[in-house]
């Protein structure tokens, strides 16, 4: 994979390099796909959303502001795309289409059960809170980076994350998550 940083690659894409865009796809498709999957709960829809995100990114590449970081820009496009989808269609209650694809080294039935509880918990959260948890724990962004991506002030990010975690814990306790600890 290319060692060039994101903004360098964006510059090259604007100049006409398709291979640089391919590097960006390689770098972000997995995270965006999985984030979309956790949001919408369906593999095919998540794939469609991921494709849409990259097509839109490519089309808007010319307007990219080099004072910002690329990941916050593409994640923002991904969030908008996913939230727009959710506005028209509600999320599916369980992860459809992932049963056979997950590489699970903890094949114990407890893990599978906990996964389902976690997913159900995430789906029960309001989309605004779910997004923050996904950005934090799936995309691995810091509070500052989440604030940059969502355009929410950092204090609000902290406070919303607090509420999101509290709610998720409560939901998971309610579904019996800690019973097997």
């Amino acid at each position, binding site marked *: 994979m290319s060692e060039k940083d994101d903004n360098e690659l964006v510059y090259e894409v604007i100049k006409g390099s398709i291979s640089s865009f391919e590097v960006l796809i390689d770098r972000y498709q997995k995270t965006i796909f999985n984030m979309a999957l956790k949001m919408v709960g369906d593999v095919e829809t998540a*794939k469609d959303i991921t*494709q849409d995100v990259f*097509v839109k990114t490519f089309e808007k590449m010319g307007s990219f502001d080099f004072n910002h970081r690329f990941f916050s820009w593409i994640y923002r496009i991904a969030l908008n795309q996913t939230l727009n989808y959710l506005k028209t269609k509600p999320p599916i209650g369980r992860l459809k289409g992932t049963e056979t694809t*997950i590489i699970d080294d*903890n094949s114990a039935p407890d893990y599978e059960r906990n996964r389902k509880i*976690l997913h159900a918990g995430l789906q029960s959260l309001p989309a605004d809170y779910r997004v923050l948890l996904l950005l934090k724990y799936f995309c691995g962004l810091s*509070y500052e980076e989440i604030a940059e991506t969502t355009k929410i002030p950092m204090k609000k990010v902290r406070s919303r994350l607090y509420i999101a*975690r509290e709610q998720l*814990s409560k939901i998971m306790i309610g579904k019996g998550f800690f019973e097997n600890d």
Partner: protein
Amino acid sequence: MTEKIIIEKLYRKLDGELPENEYRELLEYMIKNPSLGQKMKGWESVKALLDKEKNNAIDVDLKKEILSRINMETYKTKENKQEIKIVRSIWARPSIRFGFAFILGVFAGIILFAFFKNDFKGSREGTPEMKGTLYNPNSFDNMKTADLLQYESPLAKAICDVHYSNRIVEIRLDLSSLYPVKSTLEFDFNNFEVLNIQNITVNDQTTAIAASSFVQINNVGDNKFIIQLLNKNKLPHNIDFKIFQNDSPIYQNSVQVNKE
């Protein structure tokens, strides 16, 4: 510190985003309130599960699908286009050239206006330099008097009043004759130029002709004329006034303008 703040700090600690000084405060509080530790254990399990989920994230390769959806035709055309950069001098830009010409024109206009305004301004209270305008006949009285020629005979009667300023020579000519007479004002075209001839009392049989070095009036009856000449220089020059009947001179005189 409220419990909410403490728990929020605990979360931040688990996320690795709590500064050292705040962590020390948190530890002191935790020692006093060990029940909070239990609460955090619960969240740690959730976080561990989230981390595991992240590690088990599904791998996808959508590159082909994405690239096939991008309008490559448009893109390739864009790519093949050679960038042609035309470096043009600032003077080659039409806007600059027209702008410059416009400013120059305005500037020239102002200069010309300032130059001629003395003669074309309708002001009556101007300096003596402004006397003798075309459009303000009243200024005639303010001009210098060159001479007043008078002639009277049974054949014709003429009064020729000549005034001048630095730029204009104005002649008021009253001609009266029962039969046709011809009157001329002759001058050197290097010194004067005809600007205007006005027949104040119009008579069908009377004509006025202007040439570069003379003005000729063919008169029958009573007529009044105003003749204005451009005074080309300030040197003394003569204007000859003549009256003819049947091409024979019956009166001849000379008026000097720009008297020293």
